[in-house]
């Protein structure tokens, strides 16, 4: 703040004195207001805050003491001086008691007045400074409390559990999620909690506490807090440094990874299954070749040819499977990269039927396509939908009887497009239906003996349907046929 002129209020009924004093003070850099009697003086004091007030003791309307009292009441911060020609100890004492800073007897020399005013003003400045500091301190304290509350609120809104201990393992900070994960009812700041914490976490914390050097490295570990994989968390411990670099404490963050573990497990199970499925045809081919090469085992030329043919077929199956797996992997990637366009489902079905013409002719299968709606649009990736129906139709041919039929119908079902693919094939038993969409699952009975496949076709179909939030149902009767009903959100 810029240095302001000290503001003085002069209350004196003597006109001459008023003017002289005013002139004097103004020349010394004070700002002055004057009043010729007590009443005016009080009303001026009410309208503006003064640093200093010079009050004459004897005035016609109000006693200087009364004016002093009133001004002290209105503005307790104003430094007041009583001036009077009728100086006496009693008045001096009384005015001081009533809050006057000083008592100046008239007549006074200018230097004396100035000196007094200066001292008074110094006091005034100190008082103002003290006020200001007090206010700042209060605001600071309020801020700190607010910050603490905010910190607590933020901590408690974290889903991750947070626990902070100091260098001696005492609890410094924690949040409600930590209590929840660790299944604790209550803990108190200051508690030595290393023994209550899971041993994996205490061990990590101890590593920091016992180490003599501060190292910013963190430790992480996965802990099964509830058996049966019901609750798995990842606990990460990091050191908290003092400004000078020494260890202040350790912060532990606990994160729930149960869901992502489940996904991880499913993925690694899939990988294992893939490995198994890839190994199988390879093992078969190796076996045949080994027998052919084994001099101790006798095989006829016919057998040899048979083995080679079967090896060839197994390898072709392997290639088909690898291609399907690549498709699945591409689809997983494409989850965020689909090229959504407006598609006409009828034209996709028709081109798929054309694509499979050779297989259809081979078994002499007739295809009928019934359109029961005019709204044939779909918003989807063309490759996805083409693949979907290629797989379904391919199955409808493979598992069909010679001279059989495939009936396809498209209709509107609420906000969905319903496509039914029906065949007159070998059908399935209820227990075979259950595993239908499972990866690598193929139905094995006398009727499916000669049918080749990777076991991934329907799993791919299901993935595609799911990715569009659609639905797929199967109806089947053993020896009669199977119908797939595919619901896709209409475009």
């Amino acid at each position, binding site marked *: 703040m810029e240095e302001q002129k000290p503001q003085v209020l002069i209350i004196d009924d003597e006109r001459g004195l008023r003017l002289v004093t005013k002139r004097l003070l103004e020349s010394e850099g004070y700002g002055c207001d004057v009043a010729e009697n007590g009443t005016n003086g009080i009303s001026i004091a009410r309208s503006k805050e003064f640093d200093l007030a010079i009050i004459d003791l004897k005035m016609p309307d109000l006693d200087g003491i009364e004016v002093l009292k009133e001004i002290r009441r209105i503005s307790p911060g104003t430094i007041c001086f009583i001036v009077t020609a009728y100086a006496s100890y009693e008045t001096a004492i009384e005015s001081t008691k009533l809050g006057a800073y000083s008592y100046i007897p008239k007549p006074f020399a200018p230097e004396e007045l100035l000196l007094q005013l200066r001292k008074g003003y110094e006091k005034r400045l100190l008082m103002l400074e003290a006020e200001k500091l007090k206010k700042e301190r209060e605001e600071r304290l309020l801020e700190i409390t607010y910050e603490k509350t905010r910190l607590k609120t933020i901590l408690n809104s974290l889903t991750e559990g947070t626990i902070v201990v100091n260098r001696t393992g005492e609890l410094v900070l924690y949040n409600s999620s930590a209590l929840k994960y660790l299944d604790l009812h209550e803990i108190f700041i200051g508690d030595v909690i290393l023994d209550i914490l899971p041993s994996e976490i205490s061990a990590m914390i101890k590593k920091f506490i016992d180490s003599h050097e501060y190292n910013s490295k963190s430790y992480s570990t996965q802990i099964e807090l509830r058996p049966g994989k019901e609750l798995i968390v990842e606990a990460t411990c990091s050191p908290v440094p003092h400004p000078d670099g020494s260890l202040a404490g350790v912060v532990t963050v606990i994160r729930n990874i149960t869901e992502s573990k489940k996904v991880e497990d499913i993925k690694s199970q899939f990988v294992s*299954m893939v*490995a*198994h499925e890839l190994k*199988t045809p390879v093992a*078969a081919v*190796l076996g045949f070749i*080994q*027998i052919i090469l084994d001099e101790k*085992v006798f095989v006829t030329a016919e057998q040899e040819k048979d083995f080679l043919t079967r090896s060839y077929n*197994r390898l072709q199956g392997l290639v088909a499977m690898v291609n399907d797996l690549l498709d699945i992997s591409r689809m997983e990637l494409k989850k965020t990269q689909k090229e959504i366009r407006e598609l006409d489902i009828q034209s996709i079905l028709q081109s798929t039927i054309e694509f499979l013409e050779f297989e259809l002719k081979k078994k002499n299968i007739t295809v009928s396509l019934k359109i029961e709606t005019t709204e044939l649009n779909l918003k989807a990736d063309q490759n996805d939908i083409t693949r979907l129906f290629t797989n379904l139709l391919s199955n409808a041919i493979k598992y069909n009887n010679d001279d059989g039929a495939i009936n396809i119908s498209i209709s509107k079902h609420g906000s969905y497009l319903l496509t039914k693919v029906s065949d007159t094939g070998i059908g399935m038993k209820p227990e075979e239906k259950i595993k239908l969409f499972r990866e690598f699952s193929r139905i094995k009975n006398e009727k499916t003996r000669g049918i080749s496949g990777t076991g991934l076709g329907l799993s791919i179909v299901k993935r595609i349907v799911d990715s569009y939030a659609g639905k797929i149902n199967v109806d089947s009767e053993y020896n009669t046929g199977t119908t797939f009903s595919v619901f896709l959100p209409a475009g």
Partner: protein
Amino acid sequence: MSVHEKIKKIMLVDDDIDLLEQHKILLESKGYKIVTAENVEDGWALFKKEKPDACVLDLIMEEHDSGFILCHRIKRDSYGKTIPVFILTSATYITGFKFGSSTNEEKEWIKCDALLNKPIVFEDLLQKIEAFFDVE
């Protein structure tokens, strides 16, 4: 084999007909008689009918534990408990569980006489089978 020894009959059960045939050829070349089946039900019927001297079963057929189921059934049978049953599997890592029937605990649970990893080394299988027959 000496003349008065009966020719041993071995039952093979596997849903992979190529492997089934390969193992049949190899074992027959060693002088064994082989009977085969391709699933648990047929395998059980075959066992009752043929009363083989040993069984070699694939683990994963219709279900992931088909081999265990059949093995269990055979071992519960009054005749079956006297013969060796071997299980073949390429499932070593499917559940991240390393199968083995070496510890008594595992033997108790798995109840087969040996667990072999596919693709099998034929000499291995042969050796294990003959070990059982020699002990008799």
